C-alpha cells in the first residue's frame, strides 16, 4: 500500500466559526494505482489533497486521522521532512494553470528549480533534463519554450508544464487537483490522455480530483464520491457508473454528458446548494437536496457501509438500510 488516509479531519477556524472542510475521510491506494475523488466544488476535495501535501495553512488545521505514505505518517512528520517529500515523492498539479505558474519567472527556471532542490542538479544537465521533461509532456520545440514565460503559453500548454514540473523528480504519487476543469473540452481529453500515457510509462500512482465524473473513466479504476467533507460512496468505476446507489451520485451522473446519450438529452444539474459547512445540518448533509429523503435522514448520519452485493462498493445512505426497503418499493429511481 502506497498511501492510506484514515479518518482524516481538517477544519478551518474562521471568523464565523469552524468550517469542517474534511470530516472523517478514509481511502487508500496501491503503488501505480489511479483513483478518483469526485464531488461538487466546495465538498473538500482540495483540502483533502492539501492535507496530504501538508500544505494546510492557518486558519486551517488537521485535527485528527493519519496519512500513511510509504509507511510513514505524514501528519507526524516535521516541516523539514515534509519538504523532502513534497515535489520529490509526491507531485501535485492544480486546477488553474493560468494562475498556478509564477508569471515573472521563466518556465525553465520553474522546472529546473524542482530538480535542483531535491537532486542538486544544476547547469547544463538540469537544462537538458528540463528539455526532456517538456518534450515528454508533448510540448513542441522545448529548448526554445524553456526561456519563455507562462503568459506566452496557452492554457493546455501551461497545464502540460505543470505536469512536467510535478513529474520532474519522478514521484511515486501524483495528485491532480481538477487538472482539466479550467480547460476546453478537447484540451481536457488531451490532458487526460497525456496523464494516462505518463502513468503507463512511469508507473506512478495518481489521485485524480474532479467534479466531473465524465473525465474519470479513462484514467481511474476506483472512484470515491465526496459530499460535504465526507465520502458518501466508493467503488470501482463500473459500479459507480452503472450501479450507483447514492442519490447524490445519481445527481452527479445526470449532470455528465455521455457519449451514448441521445443528442437532445438534457443535462440535469443537482437541485439546490451544497450545505454550509459552518453549521452542518444534523443527519445526512445531502438530505435537504435529496428527492428520496426520509425522516431519519435529517436526524442521523448514515455510515459508509459495504453494499449488499459487492463488498468493495460502499455507500453511506439510509436507503440501503433493510428497514427502508418497505418504503422504497417501486420508487427506485436513478438516472431516469
Amino acid at each position, binding site marked *: 500500500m502506497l498511501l492510506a488516509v484514515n479518518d482524516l479531519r481538517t477544519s478551518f477556524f474562521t471568523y464565523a466559526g469552524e468550517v469542517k472542510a474534511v470530516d472523517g475521510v478514509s481511502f487508500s491506494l496501491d503503488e501505480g494505482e489511479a483513483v478518483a475523488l469526485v464531488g461538487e466544488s466546495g465538498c473538500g476535495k482540495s483540502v483533502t489533497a492539501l492535507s496530504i*501535501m501538508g*500544505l494546510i495553512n492557518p486558519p486551517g488545521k488537521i485535527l485528527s486521522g493519519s496519512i500513511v505514505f510509504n509507511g510513514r505518517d505524514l501528519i507526524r512528520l516535521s516541516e523539514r521532512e515534509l*519538504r*523532502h*517529500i*513534497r*515535489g*520529490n515523492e509526491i*507531485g*501535485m498539479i*492544480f486546477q*488553474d494553470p493560468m*494562475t*498556478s*505558474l*509564477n*508569471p*515573472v*519567472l*521563466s518556465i525553465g527556471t520553474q522546472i529546473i*528549480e*524542482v530538480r535542483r*532542490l*531535491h537532486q542538486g542538479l544544476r547547469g547544463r544537465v538540469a537544462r537538458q533534463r528540463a528539455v526532456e521533461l517538456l518534450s515528454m509532456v508533448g510540448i513542441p520545440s522545448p529548448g526554445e519554450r524553456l526561456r519563455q*514565460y507562462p*503568459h*506566452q503559453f*496557452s492554457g493546455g500548454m501551461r497545464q502540460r508544464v*505543470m505536469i512536467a*514540473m*510535478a513529474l520532474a523528480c519522478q514521484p511515486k504519487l501524483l495528485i491532480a487537483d481538477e487538472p482539466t476543469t479550467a480547460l476546453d473540452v478537447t484540451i481536457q481529453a488531451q490532458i487526460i490522455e497525456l496523464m494516462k500515457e505518463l502513468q503507463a510509462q512511469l508507473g506512478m500512482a495518481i489521485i485524480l480530483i474532479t467534479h466531473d465524473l465524465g473525465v474519470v473513466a479513462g484514467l481511474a479504476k476506483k472512484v470515491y464520491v465526496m459530499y460535504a467533507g465526507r465520502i458518501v460512496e466508493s467503488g470501482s468505476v463500473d459500479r459507480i457508473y452503472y450501479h450507483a446507489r447514492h442519490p447524490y451520485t445519481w445527481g452527479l451522473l445526470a449532470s455528465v454528458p455521455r457519449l451514448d446519450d441521445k443528442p437532445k438529452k438534457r443535462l440535469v444539474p443537482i437541485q439546490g446548494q451544497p450545505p454550509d459547512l459552518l453549521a452542518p445540518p444534523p443527519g445526512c448533509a445531502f438530505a435537504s437536496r435529496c428527492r428520496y429523503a426520509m425522516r431519519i435522514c435529517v436526524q442521523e448520519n448514515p455510515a459508509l457501509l459495504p453494499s449488499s452485493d459487492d463488498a468493495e462498493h460502499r455507500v453511506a445512505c439510509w436507503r440501503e438500510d433493510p428497514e427502508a426497503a418497505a418504503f422504497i418499493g417501486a420508487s427506485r429511481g436513478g438516472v431516469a
Partner: protein
Amino acid sequence: MIKFLIRRLLSMVLVLWVIATVTFIFMHLIPGGPFTREKKLPAAIMRNIEARYHLNDPLPKQYLDYFRNLLRGDLGPSYTYEGRTVNEISADGFPGAATLGLAAVGIALLIGIPAGIISALYRSKWQDNLAMLLATIFVSVPNFILASLLMLVFALKLRWFPAAMWGEPSQIVLPALALTGFPTAFISRLTRSSMVEVMQQDYIRTARAKGLSNLAVVVRHALKNSLIPVVTYLGPLLAGNMTGRFLVENIFAIPGLGRYFVTSIYNRDYTVILGVTIFYSSLLVVLNFLVDLTYAWIDPRIRFTDSGKE
C-alpha cells in the same frame, strides 16, 4: 517593447504640453500680477516693466514665445528676484532638493520594504501589529510637524545636530529623517499588503508543493511580484515627498527648490511658481517613465505585450 517605448514617450510629451499650456492659462487667469500688488506704480514705470517682460504682447504671441522659450529650456525671468532667471533659481535649488529627496526615499526603501515583508510573513502576530502601528503613526504625522519636533529636540535642546547651515553632512540627517517618516510608513504598508496578496496566489502554493522552504518561497517567488506596486508608487512618492520638502527646507533653512517655491508664493512671483511647477511635473513624468521601464523589466507580461505571442 519598441512600440511600448514610443507610446510612452509620446504620451509623456503630450502630458507635458498639456501641463505647460494649462499653467500658462493659469498664469493669465490670475487677477493682477506681481507688480500690481500693494501701492500702484506710476503708469509710465508700469508700462516700462510690462514691456520688459513682454506682458503687453497679444496672448497668442505670448503663448508662442513662452513655448519657444520652454522648448529651449528657458523658463523665463523671475519677477521678484531682480535679474535672475527661473532656470538659475532651479539650478541653484535642485541639488539640495534632490540630495534630500533621494536620501529620504533611500532610507524609506531600506527600512520600509523589510518591515513590510516581516509584517506580511508574521501576519496578525506582534511583529505585524507593532510595525503597522508605527506605520500608521508615521503616516499620520505631517512631516513639517515631524521636522519641527526633530529640530526642537535634537538641534535646539540636545544640540546633537546643527539647526541650520547647509553643506555639512551632519546637517542632512534631521531633514532627511523628517522627510523619511511618511514614505517609510507608506512603503512598508504597501509592501505588506502586496506581499500578503502575493502569498495567497496559486503559484505560491505551487512553489510550496515543490518542497521549497518558506524562505525560498518568499525570496524566489514572492519578492519580485510583491515589489511591483512599490515600484509603481516610487515616482509619485518621490514627487509627493516634495510637499514635505517645501516646508522642511523652509524650516531647516536649506537653499532647496522648495524654499524658493514657498517664497515665491508669498511674493506672488508667478514665473517662478509656474516654472517650478513645470520643472517638477517634468521630473514626475520622467520618474514615472523610469518606473514603467522598471516595471516592464520585472514583469515579463508587460515586456512582451507587443512582440510576444499569446
